């Protein structure tokens, strides 16, 4: 097992954040399709999820390449046409699997972090 280094927690949390971010994006598309700026703005507003809003666009592009989201162009009254992102079937499945795994992990970790260390027997 790797040595745990003091102060490393923030680095670990940053890595976890990066890992779950794609699924958070998928979750945001669960109920309705959204265009790039909406998504980026909403994610940027959620505490600590994203340090650089611009990096969401490559993430969205990657999700599209992987077939998890689909894009359509829609006319906008106020400017150029907008690229809307929509959850694809594969994306729905991936989101479902992740949600289940995440909830189990989250609950387990919460329990252990809160444990009082009582003797089990």
């Amino acid at each position, binding site marked *: 097992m790797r040595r745990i280094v003091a102060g490393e927690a923030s680095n670990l949390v940053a890595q976890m954040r990066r890992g779950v971010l794609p699924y958070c994006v998928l979750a945001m598309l669960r109920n309705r399709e959204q265009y*790039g*700026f909406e998504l*980026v703005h909403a994610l*940027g507003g959620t505490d600590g999820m994203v*340090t*650089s*809003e*611009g*990096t969401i*666009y*490559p*993430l969205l*592009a*990657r999700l599209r390449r992987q077939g998890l989201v689909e894009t359509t162009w829609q006319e906008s009254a*106020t*400017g*150029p046409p*907008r*690229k809307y992102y929509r959850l694809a079937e594969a994306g729905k499945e991936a989101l479902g699997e992740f949600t289940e795994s995440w909830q189990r992990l989250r609950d387990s970790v919460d329990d252990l972090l809160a444990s009082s260390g009582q003797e089990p027997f």
Partner: protein
Amino acid sequence: MSSASDTAGDRLVADYLNRLAAEAASLPADRRADLLEEISVHIAEARTVRYAAGAARSLSVASVLERLGRPEDIVREAAEDTESDAAAAQSPPRRRVLDTGTVILLLIGGLLIGLGWIAGVAMLWASPRWRTSDKLLATLVWPGGLAAVLAVPRFGTGLPPPLALSLLLIGVAGPIVAAVRLLRQAWRPAAVPPVFPHPHKAA
């Protein structure tokens, strides 16, 4: 909004997009184009939207760009899992050495050892670097490369000197031009993107 701050903002945006375009030179062309467009559109939208209900003005351009983040960070994110694409865009070093050797063989292989040119042709057709049309040209137009030049004195003794000289010059220039063309394609790096003259403007 005063026109002076608009112009200053436009300059900031143009600078930012130019930096982004430069950083993104290493990306595959389609990915680079998409990214540049998406960021441009984002900036245009962000400059016009009101971030808070009742806000008197939208965010300053500087804030929008700061929230977007550094171009190098954005491009680094876009470059993930691009390794295979990048390899296709620019030949790895070993391939470039092989391709250079191929061109040398095509050019002078006939002069040194007759079979050298034939080996060069085999390597030419085996290489993934060149298009079929280029390969055909290199093979058929100047068979034997510079060795064809040796044929002129042998078969051209009956020709008037000016004609013989012209044929000699063409015989030398032709293979060299073809070789240079093949080499440039073998060594070509990923294309550099255009510079942004001005940012998108929302209607």
